[in-house]
Structures are given as C-alpha cells and as structure tokens.
C-alpha cells in the first residue's frame, strides 16, 4: 500500500493491514530485540564456519574447529575403557578365586558379568537367572557340574555336551527302556521319587531300591546324592531340572533328555568368562 495512514489515537503509522476495521500499528521493534536478532545472525554465520554445517556432495563441510560428534563418542568410549582398564587387566591376570577375595574387583567383575549375562545367557537361563524346565536355575545351591567358582568358570568356558570344544563336560544317561523291564522302570521311578520326598508308592519304591543299586548307583551314588564329576544330579534334594512328579521320573528313565550349553570361552574370551563366573557365583548359590 502506497498511501501512508496514521492512527489518530496513538499517532503511530499503521502497516496498512486491516481486519474488520482493526488496523495494525507499525510500531518499531524494541531495540534490544533487534540487536539480539542481528547478533544471532552473526552468531549463525560464525557457527557454520566453525562447525560442520553446509551440505556438500559427499559430506558436509567439516568446520574450522574440526568438531565431530562421532569423534566425541569415540573419545568418550576410549575414556570409559581407559577408566576401567586397570580392573579389566586385574581380572585378566588373576584367578577367579583371587577375584572373589578382592571386594572391589569382585564388585567390578560381577557388574561386568551381569551385563554380559543379559546379552548372552538370558535366552536360556532367564533374566533373573532362574532358568526353567531343562535350563538350570543359577540362584540355588544345586550344581550339576559343581558349584565352586572354578567349577562354574569351567562350565561356562567349555560348555556342556558341546561338540565344538574338546574340554566340554560330557555325560549321557542311557535310555533304560532298552535295558529295564517296564515294571522295573516304574519301581525304580517310585524309589527315586521317595528319595526327594515326591509322592510315591512305598511297595514299588521298596522293589525299586534293588534296581537302583544295580543300575543307577554307579553315577548317582548309592545314596542318590549324585556325582558332579559326571554331571549326575543329586536325586535326594528339592531341586530337579526335569521332573516334578513320579511320572516325570519314569519318562526321564525311559528316554532321558540331555541339555546342551555352548562353550563361551572361544566366543567371549577368558576375561569375560571370569566375569560371568563371578556374577553367577554372586547370585547366592556358590559353594
């Protein structure tokens, strides 16, 4: 609009815009605001020179300060690695027993182990390490392959029935459907149930006692307390990997299930295995 219009009341010229008779006064912007605005423009120009900003064909301009957020992350990661380097070195050079004895080192190793457990182990053992049927609960004090820190380390390092590792734990319970008569299986199952306090027929259990002595005691022990060297579980305690009833025991005697656990040392390295062992040991069941 070329015509200059001045508002009668305020004496200020208007912008010429009008809405239903309401005109917009053309007051100047506050000076501090204008100067702040100019300052932001100057700042923005300086910023695009100093920092990566303008998009080019393959990448953006790098900026005279050479800043890079990726480099920042790298530095921060390196700083974090350096900060824990002394602990990691100590874990690498000491035995698991020595790690357990040193409170700070144990705390560090258990924390590192907890993080690695969350990535590598929870798929089978669960996020609370409570396992499930066929996958051992690591919180309790029942250990198929031994519960000392060294035993735990060995189990994690070499796995169980894992073909790729020559040092892996190996044991296999025979399928007794080919060896024993069906009645014998029922009797010995009742005997095994009575050992751990599960409901069982006393007469069959009595009859199964002899079958047990002949066929089972060589691995599970005459008292049924098991043998960690061959991974034979204790049949007398309140914890079992596969069974919660006498019928489960019969099935397990006829055609036993055998779990497999990978060997982790070849994947994660010895230090990580030590950390995992410390964590698992610290869950409360370690011997």
């Amino acid at each position, binding site marked *: 609009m070329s015509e200059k219009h001045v508002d009668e009341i305020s004496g200020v010229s208007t912008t010429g815009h009008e809405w239903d008779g309401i005109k917009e006064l053309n007051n100047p912007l506050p000076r501090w605001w204008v100067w702040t605005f100019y300052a932001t423009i100057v700042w923005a120009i300086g910023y695009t020179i100093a920092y990566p900003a303008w998009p080019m064909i393959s990448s953006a301009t790098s900026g005279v300060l050479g800043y890079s957020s990726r480099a920042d992350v790298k530095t921060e990661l390196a700083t974090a690695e350096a900060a824990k380097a002394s602990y990691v070195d100590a874990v690498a050079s000491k035995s698991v027993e020595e790690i357990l004895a040193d409170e700070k080192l144990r705390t560090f190793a258990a924390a590192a182990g907890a993080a690695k457990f969350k990535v590598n182990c929870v798929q089978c053992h669960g996020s609370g390490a409570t396992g499930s049927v066929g996958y051992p609960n690591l919180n*309790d004090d029942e250990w198929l392959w031994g519960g000392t820190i060294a035993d735990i380390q060995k189990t994690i390092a070499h796995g169980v029935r894992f073909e790729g590792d020559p040092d892996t734990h190996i044991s296999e319970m025979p399928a007794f459907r080919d060896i024993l008569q069906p009645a014998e299986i029922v009797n010995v199952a009742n005997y095994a149930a009575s050992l751990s306090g599960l409901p069982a027929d006393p007469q069959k259990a009595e009859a199964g006692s002899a079958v047990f002595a002949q066929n089972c005691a060589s691995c599970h022990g005459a008292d049924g307390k098991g043998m960690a060297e061959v991974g034979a579980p204790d049949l007398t305690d309140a914890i079992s990997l596969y069974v919660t009833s006498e019928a489960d025991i019969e099935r397990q005697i006829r055609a036993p299930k055998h779990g497999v656990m990978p060997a982790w040392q070849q994947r994660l390295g010895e230090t990580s295995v030590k950390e995992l062992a410390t964590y698992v040991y610290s869950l409360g069941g370690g011997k």
Partner: protein
Amino acid sequence: MLDTQEVERLEVGAVNSARIRQPLYAKREKIFPKRAQGRFRQFKWLVMLVTLGIYYLTPWIRWDRGPFAPDQAVLVDLANRRFYFFFIEIWPQEFYFVAGLLVMAGFGLFLVTSSVGRAWCGYTCPQTVWVDLFLVVERAIEGDRNARIKLDQARWSVNKIALRLAKHAIWIAIAVATGGAWVFYFADAPKLFVDIFTGQAAPVAYITVAILTATTYTFGGLMREQVCTYMCPWPRIQAAMLDEHSLTVTYNDWRGEPRSRHAKKAVATGQPVGDCVDCNACVAVCPMGIDIRDGQQLECITCALCIDACDGVMDKVGKERGLISYATLWDYNQNMAVATAGGTAPITPALVRDPAGGLNDRIVHYHLRKILRPRTLVYLGAWLLVGVLMVYGLLTRDRLQVNVLHDRNPQYVTLSDGSIRNGYTVKLLNMIPEPRTIVVSLEGLEGASMSVVGMDHPEDRSFPVEVEPDRAKTFKVYVRQPADRIEAASQGFNFVVEDKASFESDVYNATFEAPGKSK
C-alpha cells in the same frame, strides 16, 4: 510565616510519571538521585551494612564438625550432595526443609507487605542494596545530582573519561567481589580463595564469578530501576498483598494541596495554601524517578527517601513533619474526607488545622496496633505453623535410616534342602559425620537366618556392619527360612538396624515370599 526562600527549588521532573506516560519505545531517561539525609536514610545504611555483612562474611564462619565433615558453617556441598548450616546437615532427600524455608520466606513476604508495604523492595532486596552501593560510588567520584547531570551533559574530556573509568572500574570491582563471594558458599572458602587467585579453582567457579559479575554490574550499575519496573514480578504481585490498612509511602495531599511555590504572595492575596512548597526535593531523591505526589505507583519501591527529603524541608519551613509519610489508605481517606468536607469541596487547608495552626484532632494518625488484623494474623499463623513444623521435624528426624529393596527376579529361590531364600538389597544411611557400627537383625520370620554377600559373617539372625561417616552403605542380604517354618506364601517381617552405642534405630517392614502352598 512562611519563608520559602530558604528552600531550594530543584529543577526536576519525574522521569516515570503516570501523568506523562512515556511511549513504550522511548529511550530511557537517566535518573540522578540526589543524596537524601534523615532517619530512613540512616536506617537504610544500617540495613545495607547488615545485609552486605551477612552476604560477604557468612562463608568465612567456621564450625567444627569433627574430622569427617567440612568445618564451614554454611556450605552447599554439591559434589557430595550435602548442605551444611551450622549444626544442621541436610541430605538431598531432606530437601523439604529447604522447601519449608521457601514457604516461610513466602509467608514472611506476605506478612511484611500486608503490614508495612514493600519493605522488602525498599530496604533489603539485593537489587536495592547493590544499587545503593553503586550510587555511593557514583556520588563519591562524580559528585551529587547536579554535578552528575553536568558531567553527563559535558563533552568528552580527559577529566570526564578519567571519572567515568574510575567509576566503572570500582563498579566492576564490587561486581567481581559479589560474584566471588557467591562461590565461597559452595566450597571451602579459604582454600577456594587461594585457588581462585592461583588459577587452581574449577572452571565452574570462574564461570559463576563471571556471570554474577556481569549481572551485578549490569543490574546494579546500568539498569538499576528498570530491573524493578520491567523485570521483577513482585511489583505486580504486591497489589494483591496490600489492603487499605497496609502502610505505604504516601503524599498526604489533604494537607499539602494546593501546593504553592510562592506561599507568601498567595497568602497575601487570600488564596488557600497547602504545606507543599513544590520544591521537588522528593522527586530529586527518588531512585525510581517518580513523583510520589502522583499517588501510589507500581514503580515505587517504598524506600522512604522522599520522606526524609520532605521532612527536611518541612523542618526548614517550620511545619510538622509527615507531609510525605508512611500512611494507610484508610487513614488517608479519613483525612481526605476532613480536608474536602466529605468530598463536597476542593482540598481546603483550613479544614485540617485548628486556630493555633496545628493539625486539628479530626486528623487520624497511624497506630501500630493496626498491624494486628485478621489478614496479618493469618499470615503470621501460617508462617509460625511452617516454622514450628520444621523445628519439630528437625529435632525428631532420623540420623540412621534403612531402606530395603526386595529382589523381584527371582522373588524367591528354592534351595536343595527345600528351604526358601529371598534376596534383599539393604541400604544403610549413616547421616552423622562419625563412623558407626550398625547391627542389622531380623524381627519375626521364625527360624529364618541371614547371610551377607561379601561379608564374612556366619549365617545368623543378626550381624554388625561398619558404616563410613556421612555415607550410605549398600549390601545384599539373603534371608533363608526352612521349609517347615514357612507359614504363608507371603510373610511380613522387619529389618531392624540399631547403633548399639547411641541406641538409635530404624525399622523396615519387609515381606518374605515363598511358593504359594498351604501347610
């Protein structure tokens, strides 16, 4: 009778006047407050001395707390998350004490404002105190009002540059000292003092000093009254705090009007003459650039310097003091009614005076007991209530606390002998600056026992723990109960922690979970 020749008439107009409201975009007009003398000025000097003294000296007060805690009386230890105030030590979770102090400050402000107006603004607000301090420097270097105006209008000369440089240099020195004193509240003052000058202090200390230097210099030296008028919300809030019984600085126009510069001549011609000689002394001393005779205004911080100025003039012309005074709207309206014969006439000086020339007895004067009224009593009550609650809370608070986090995954573990184990993360808070031995025991949960991860204690129902001074100690406790003692899927029991030396103790109500089976 009147001799107005003795009274110097000042050429000054109110910079901020409701009558001649400046356009919003006008450039700020500088204010050159004249030095005032009188009892309120004396009182303000005293307040300045006390408030600045508290601010600058507090961090240097020492307070012995033994070898395990800092010996600074007032210290905000951000790094260790502790706040020390003489014999009180506050942990972050006790922040409600600080919140309580803020509530008390709020009610205190309401109480003061409803009783004596914006006393906070006029006397103790840091903005007022520092502007006063900056004005002292300005006067000492450039002289009083007239000299300063002259210097401001003068062309740039060596003398002017020298004076200005000196003034701003001292201002900046004060600003640096202000920012410098602030950081001492956050670290050991004597050590930080040395560190700052040797370049050893943390960057955040220098940044804080720099920011506070900038704000002090800008607000106290350059912006002054604009901070109060444009930036501060309190002038807007105060209207809700004031009522007709609140004291405010008031121009008593019922005795001042009609004002006259030539009273003798006016009296001679038989015109009515009020007490105001229109000398503008009240305007000249005003740091806010207002004319109090326009009535109560948003800009007025009630610093009462105009009262001092006017009282001086009244003394000279032989009138009673108090033409400008602390008065309530109630009293003012009463007296105004007297002066205007109930609003039927213009202000008539004869109506407020008795034949002997004194103010007649129909004029009401303020009495202190008017402070006591429901509004102020409610504010006082609320203020006292919060204060008493805080003191009670402070005297009865625990210095030994236990927090327990029950493991959720797993909630319980069945052990090989059939017993059930629950895991708990126990956090012991030793909130005194002395190392302590705390005994943790089980209460309830028959037959259960505890073992602690990483501590070589035999499994038992209680065990001792060493806790560092002023620190929390966290450890994992496994509680185990034999199968035949389990009474329900969920059983309540207590973790009891006790300092056997002081008999201080705390209890945490925990639950013990077991597989859901009936006996």
